[in-house]
C-alpha cells in the first residue's frame, strides 16, 4: 500500500500470479518492507491487537450465527442451548461476549494513545477520521450484538437506545418505527438487528483496510512526534514490528483469557439472564460499560433533545480534533501543559463512566453535569487555547537523536507513579466508605463455595443432595426448563451413571403427541427430555401464586446479583469473586423471619425476607429443618439444604463450569510460555536497533 513494489517471489508459480495480480508485492511492501519508526513504544501494538480482536469476533460470530435463532420467542433459549449443548459453545460464546469488551478496551487505549501523541495532526487527519468512523460502527455493532441474546437488558437497552431517535424533531417517530419494524421493540426489531450485526463487522473490516492504507501513506506517528528523516530512523516492519506486535497480542490475550475462563460474567449484567419481558422494566437500566461515559452525558442534560445531541456530539467532536488542536508539536511528551490536561481528561472519562452506572439522583446528577462540561471544555476550550499559549519544550532533531538521548524515559515513570498512587488512594478512601455502608445493611453474607476460585469444582455430594431438595421442595412451584435428564450423567455434573439418569427420568410422566389418532398421550420421561415445569404457562403460575410467578430456576444463580459497589468490583477482578448469585440465593432461602422489624410493612399474602429487595417476598418459607431426608448422613438443616440446593442451581446455570476452569488453566500455561518466547525473540530481533 505504499507504492509499486520491486518485490519478486522466487517460486515460479507465485511469479506467474504476481505478473497478473501483484498481490505478493503489495503484501511485502505493506507488511514486510514497510519502514516503521524505531522509537515506537508498546502503546503502538494496539493496532495489531485490534486487528486480532476483529478477526476473533468475526470468526466466533460466524460460528455462533450457525447455532443462533433470531426469533423473539426462541433467541434466549437458543443462546442457552449454544452454551449447554454445542461443542465448546460456552467457549465460543464467552470469547464473543468478552471479546466485544476487550475490543473496546483496546480501542480506547488506541484512541487515548492517538490523543496523547497527537496522531490526528497533519498529515494524518483522514486516518484519524476513518478511525472515528470505525469507532462509531463498533458502537452500533456492539449495541446490536447485545440485543441478540434477548434478555431483559437486551430488550430494555434496545428500547432506550432506539427511543433516542424519537428526540429528532419531525422525523423522530417515523425513524423509530423504521428501526422497530413494528409498533414497539419486538421480533422484527430482533431480526433486523441480527442482520445488521452480521453486516457491520464486514463494513468495519472494509474501513480498517482504508485506515491501514491511510496509515501506510502518511506513515506511523511516533512517541516523539517527529517524522522519520533517514533510514536510521526506521526499522523494517518484519521482523521488528511483527514480533513486537506478537508479544503485545500475547500479553493482551492473557487479560482476555482471564475474563473468558475465570470471569465471563464480570462485565455483563445479571438481568440479561432473565428472558426479555415487554411488561416489566428492570429497576435500573445500564448499558454495557463501554457506552457508560456517553450515557452519563445523555442523562446529565435535563432536556431530551439536547441530551441526545450532547451524547452524539461527544463522539462527533473527535472528528474535528485535528483542527481544534492547532499546536505544531505533536507529542504531549514535549507539551508540559497538554500532558497534564490529557491525564485530567482521562480521569474525567473514567469518572463519567462510573456515573453512567449509578442511579440518576442527588449528587450523581450534579457530578454528571460538571464532568460533562469538563469533557466538552477539553475539546472546545483547553485544546484550542493551549495551542496558542503553551510553550512546548524543544523536540529532538530526528528519531535517532531521540532514541540516543532517551530523555523521556525519566518523566514517564513519574507520571505513572502519580496515577498509581492516586488510584490506590481513591481505592482506600472508597473502601473506608463501603465498610461503613455495609454495616447493618442487608448484603448477603459471603459463603465458602466448593466451585469458587480458579480450580473450583462442584461437590458431587452437594449436587446430588441439592437435586433431591429441588425435586422434593422447589419443583412444586419452580421449573428447571433448560436442564435435561441426560445432563445428570454428564461429566462435571452430579456424577450419576447413564442408567441412573434414565431411571430418574422414567419417574416423570410427560405429555407427548399427537399419536396416529391425533391424541396427546402420557409417557415416561426419557434422558433426552427436559425437567417438566409445574405450570403449563406463566399466567397459570401467576394465578396459582398470588400474582407473582415463581421464576424458572435453571439460570437463577446467574440471573440474580446484588450491588457490589466501589471498590469491591475492582477487588473482585483480582480475587475472581463471582459468586454474588449463589450468595444471594442461599441468603434468601435462609432470610425468612417471622419477626418483622419496625419500619417495614409487609402486605397481605407476602412474607418478610431480610435479603429480598424490598423485603416482601411472595414465596412462603420453603425450607425447614428435617424436611428432606438425606441418605449420606449430612445434617438435615436449613443451612445445609440451602447450601446444597444453591450448589445444584449453580451447576444448572453453568453445567460446563468445571471444563471452563480446567481449560482456562491449560490456556494460561500456554499463553505465559508463548508470551515469554515472544519476549525473548523480540529482544533478540531488536538487539542492534536500540
Amino acid at each position: 500500500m505504499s507504492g509499486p513494489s520491486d518485490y519478486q517471489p522466487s517460486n515460479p508459480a507465485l511469479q506467474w500470479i504476481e505478473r497478473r495480480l501483484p498481490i505478493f508485492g503489495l503484501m511485502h511492501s505493506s507488511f514486510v518492507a514497510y519502514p516503521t519508526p524505531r522509537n515506537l513504544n508498546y502503546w503502538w501494538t494496539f493496532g495489531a491487537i485490534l486487528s486480532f480482536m476483529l478477526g476473533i469476533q468475526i470468526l466466533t460470530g460466524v460460528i455462533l450465527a450457525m447455532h443462533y435463532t433470531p426469533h423473539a420467542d426462541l433467541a434466549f433459549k437458543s443462546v442457552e442451548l449454544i452454551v449447554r449443548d454445542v461443542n465448546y459453545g460456552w467457549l465460543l460464546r464467552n470469547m464473543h461476549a468478552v471479546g466485544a469488551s476487550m475490543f473496546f478496551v483496546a480501542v480506547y487505549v488506541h484512541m487515548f494513545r492517538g490523543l496523547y501523541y497527537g496522531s490526528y495532526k497533519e498529515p494524518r487527519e483522514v486516518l484519524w477520521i476513518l478511525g472515528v468512523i470505525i469507532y462509531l460502527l463498533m458502537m452500533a455493532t456492539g449495541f446490536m450484538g447485545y440485543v441478540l441474546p434477548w434478555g431483559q437488558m437486551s430488550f430494555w437497552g434496545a428500547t432506550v437506545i432506539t427511543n433516542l431517535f424519537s428526540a429528532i424533531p419531525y422525523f423522530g417517530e417515523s425513524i423509530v418505527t423504521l428501526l422497530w419494524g413494528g409498533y414497539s421493540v419486538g421480533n422484527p426489531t430482533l431480526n433486523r438487528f441480527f442482520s445488521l450485526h452480521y453486516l457491520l463487522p464486514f463494513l468495519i473490516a472494509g474501513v480498517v483496510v482504508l485506515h491501514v492504507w491511510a496509515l501506510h501513506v502518511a506513515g506511523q506517528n511516533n512517541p516523539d512526534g517527529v517524522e522519520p528523516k533517514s533510514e536510521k530512523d526506521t526499522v523494517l516492519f518484519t521482523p521488528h514490528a511483527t514480533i513486537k506486535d506478537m508479544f503485545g497480542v500475547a500479553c493482551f490475550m492473557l487479560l482476555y483469557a482471564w475474563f473468558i475462563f475465570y470471569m465471563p460474567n464480570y462485565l455483563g449484567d445479571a438481568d440479561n439472564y432473565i428472558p426479555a419481558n415487554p411488561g416489566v422494566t428492570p429497576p435500573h437500566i445500564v448499558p454495557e460499560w463501554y457506552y457508560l461515559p456517553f450515557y452519563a452525558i445523555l442523562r446529565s442534560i435535563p432536556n431530551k433533545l439536547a441530551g441526545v445531541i450532547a451524547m452524539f456530539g461527544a463522539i462527533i467532536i473527535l472528528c474535528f480534533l485535528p483542527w481544534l488542536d492547532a499546536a505544531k508539536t505533536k507529542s504531549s511528551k514535549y507539551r508540559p501543559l497538554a500532558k497534564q490536561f490529557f491525564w485530567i481528561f482521562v480521569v474525567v472519562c473514567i469518572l463519567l463512566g462510573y456515573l453512567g452506572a449509578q442511579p440518576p439522583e442527588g449528587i450523581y446528577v450534579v457530578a454528571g453535569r460538571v464532568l460533562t462540561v469538563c469533557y466538552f471544555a477539553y475539546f472546545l476550550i483547553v485544546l484550542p487555547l493551549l495551542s496558542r499559549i503553551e510553550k512546548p519544550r524543544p523536540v529532538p532533531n530526528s528519531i535517532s537523536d531521540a532514541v540516543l538521548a532517551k530523555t523521556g524515559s525519566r518523566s514517564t515513570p513519574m507520571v505513572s507513579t502519580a496515577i498509581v498512587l492516586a488510584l490506590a488512594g481513591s481505592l482506600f478512601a472508597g473502601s473506608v466508605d463501603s465498610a461503613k455502608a455495609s454495616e447493618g445493611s442487608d448484603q448477603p453474607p459471603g459463603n465458602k463455595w466448593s466451585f469458587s476460585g480458579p480450580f473450583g469444582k462442584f461437590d458431587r455430594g452437594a449436587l446430588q443432595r441439592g437435586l433431591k431438595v429441588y425435586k422434593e421442595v422447589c419443583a412444586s412451584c419452580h421449573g428447571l426448563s433448560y436442564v435435561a435428564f441426560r445432563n445428570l450423567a454428564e461429566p462435571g455434573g452430579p456424577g450419576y451413571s447413564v442408567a441412573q439418569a434414565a431411571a430418574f427420568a422414567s419417574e416423570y410422566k410427560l405429555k407427548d403427541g399427537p399419536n396416529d389418532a391425533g391424541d396427546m398421550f402420557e409417557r415416561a420421561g426419557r434422558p433426552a427430555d427436559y425437567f417438566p415445569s409445574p405450570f403449563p404457562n406463566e399466567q397459570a403460575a401467576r394465578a396459582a401464586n398470588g400474582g407473582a410467578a415463581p421464576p424458572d430456576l435453571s439460570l437463577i444463580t446467574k440471573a440474580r446479583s446484588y450491588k457490589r459497589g466501589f471498590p469491591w468490583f475492582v477487588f473482585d477482578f483480582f480475587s475472581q469473586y463471582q459468586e454474588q448469585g449463589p450468595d444471594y440465593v442461599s441468603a434468601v432461602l435462609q432470610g425468612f423471619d417471622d419477626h418483622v422489624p419496625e419500619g417495614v410493612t409487609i402486605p397481605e399474602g407476602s412474607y418478610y425476607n431480610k435479603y429480598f429487595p424490598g423485603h416482601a417476598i411472595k414465596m412462603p418459607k420453603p425450607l425447614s429443618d428435617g424436611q428432606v431426608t438425606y441418605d449420606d448422613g449430612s445434617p438435615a438443616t436449613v443451612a445445609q439444604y440451602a447450601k446444597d440446593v444453591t450448589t445444584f442451581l449453580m451447576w444448572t446455570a453453568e453445567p460446563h463450569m468445571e471444563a471452563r476452569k480446567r481449560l482456562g488453566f491449560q490456556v494460561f500455561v500456554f499463553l505465559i510460555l508463548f508470551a515469554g518466547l515472544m519476549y525473548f525473540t523480540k529482544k533478540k530481533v531488536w538487539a542492534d536497533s536500540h
Partner: protein
Amino acid sequence: MNPDASTIAAGAPIEVDLSPVAEGQDIKVFWRGKPIYISHRTKKQIDEARGVNVASLPDPETDEARVKSGHDQWLVVIGICTHLGCIPIAHEGNYDGFFCPCHGSQYDSSGRIRQGPAPANLPVPPYQFVSDTKIQIG
C-alpha cells in the same frame, strides 16, 4: 423496513371489558406491543388532576381533554415513558399517578408529566366507549 402486513394486521383494535376493574384499581393491557394502562380513578385522584393550574404544567393539557366526558373516572394512557420508553409503575411517585423507575420521571393521576426528564404527557391512545363498561382501543 416499515412494518409488514401481518404486523399491521395484528395491530387491529381490541375491546376491553371494564366491569371487573374496581375503583382505585388499574389494569394493563397490550395493544400493538405497547402496554396500555386503564385506571379506574377515585374521586380524590380526579379532583387532584383537575385542581392543578394547567398553565404551570410542563406540557399543558386539561384533565377533561384527556378523558372521555361522561366517563371521567376512566383514564386510558399508553404506559410508555415519553423520555426513553421505559414502563412507568402505576400508583407510585408524589402525584398519585405514575413513576418511571429508569430516569425518575413522575406523572400525575391524569398521566401528565410533572417532574423529571420526560418532555411530554403519557399519550392517550385512540379509543372509544362501545358501552358503559366496554372500550375499544384502536
